[in-house]
């Protein structure tokens, strides 16, 4: 437990969370490792976990009948993965596949929801941090949607 607590404390997502709240989270946490190519989760499966990534890289993929799996984003060290555990029907919307050997702390979604219900201060704190992650991802996704490197954009000097 001590070691999980220490690892969590150092992660950017959890950093500066009160020791009491970290202890509450640790109760839902376990260490996990994924080999390259191994799936963390698959679309439509129950979203039972929330991942705090320690190292490695995970690709979020959507399967398309025409092109097969398309990677829409990769996440890695210092980032978190998954919010489907938070929103009904608690099902993954994408596939999550380890591209490299990936180490993470997996937090049990049901357990974490329960803790947040019991302790609204923890719930609000986590929600603020998650909102910041959502905002960053949405912002990046919008930029990605602009397709700014498309050759149809007028370019001459570059």
């Amino acid at each position, binding site marked *: 437990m001590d070691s999980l607590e220490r690892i969590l404390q150092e992660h950017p997502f959890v950093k500066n969370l009160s020791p009491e709240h970290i202890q509450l989270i640790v109760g839902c946490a376990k260490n996990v490792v994924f080999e390259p190519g191994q799936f963390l989760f698959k679309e439509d499966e129950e979203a039972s976990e929330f991942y705090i990534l320690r190292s490695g890289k995970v690709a979020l993929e959507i399967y398309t009948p025409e092109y097969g799996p*398309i990677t829409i984003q990769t996440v890695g060290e210092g980032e978190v993965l998954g919010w489907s555990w938070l929103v009904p029907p608690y099902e993954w919307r994408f596939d999550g596949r380890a591209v490299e050997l990936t180490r993470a702390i997996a937090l049990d979604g049901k357990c974490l929801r329960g803790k947040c219900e019991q302790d609204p201060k923890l719930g609000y704190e986590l929600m603020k941090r998650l909102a910041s992650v959502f905002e960053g991802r949405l912002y990046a996704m919008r*930029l990605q949607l602009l397709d700014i490197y498309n050759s149809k954009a007028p370019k001459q000097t570059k």
Partner: protein
Amino acid sequence: MDPMVSHYEAIELQMVPHPYKIHRVIKETHDTFTLELKSNTSNGKFAFRAGQFNMLYIFGVGEVPISISGDPNKMETLVHTTRAVGTVTKKMAKLKKGDVIGVRGPYGTNWPVKAAIGNDVVIIAGGIGLAPLRPAIYQIISQRKHYGKIILLYGTRTPADILFRHELEKLKSRLDVDIYVTVDRATREWNGNVGVVTTLIPRAPFDPINTTAMICGPEIMMRYTIGELVKRGVSHENIFVSMERNMKCGIGFCGHCQYGTEFICKDGPVFSYAQIKDLFGKREL
């Protein structure tokens, strides 16, 4: 001689393209290519500073400003990389070894390669924006010991659009340069990063207080990149961008590339962010 006449003659000289022969054409990606040029005249040497551009003229078709993408220390060959996107560059893409084009230049300001000595250097490129930064990379690498960390963050559309791929791979094999490449979309064959280049900034290993950042890419990419760098603590004075507008004369006469109080061709294309932050992102400009 009448001083006014010599003044006009000097300007006229700057407007005259010099013939250069195409020595080699390299197809970089499906829509980008590199031209290696050799002078038809003089001693064949072309001195320039990293970040500068030339006006390249295809006789009978037109003239376009293209950044120099070669090594400033190798003056025998003049190198330009561009994308076949307009009338002139599409025609340029079809040129072959031995064909002749006109060259005027070099024009404009340069990347702060010397001023960055002692600092960490973060080079952030988007798409074809890697080409104008390549001379700076060559120069910095050639004097590696004078700099702190050297980090290249490069974002492009797909893995097939990665410019100078072999050179990047070679550079990545060095132990004293950090290179992170990301693409906007990919299939499973790509094991690298997927996402916009700005997502690489929060975890890039540089000291924001002692960092010089050089950015080149689409303006919107540069805008968001600056935002992330400032969030990390890099000062406006240490962020440099290469701007792009419709350049025609290249010497600040015609006004086509006017950018507020600046002319991109003469006062730029490389500006510090501190210099242009009041203009940057203004829709009217």
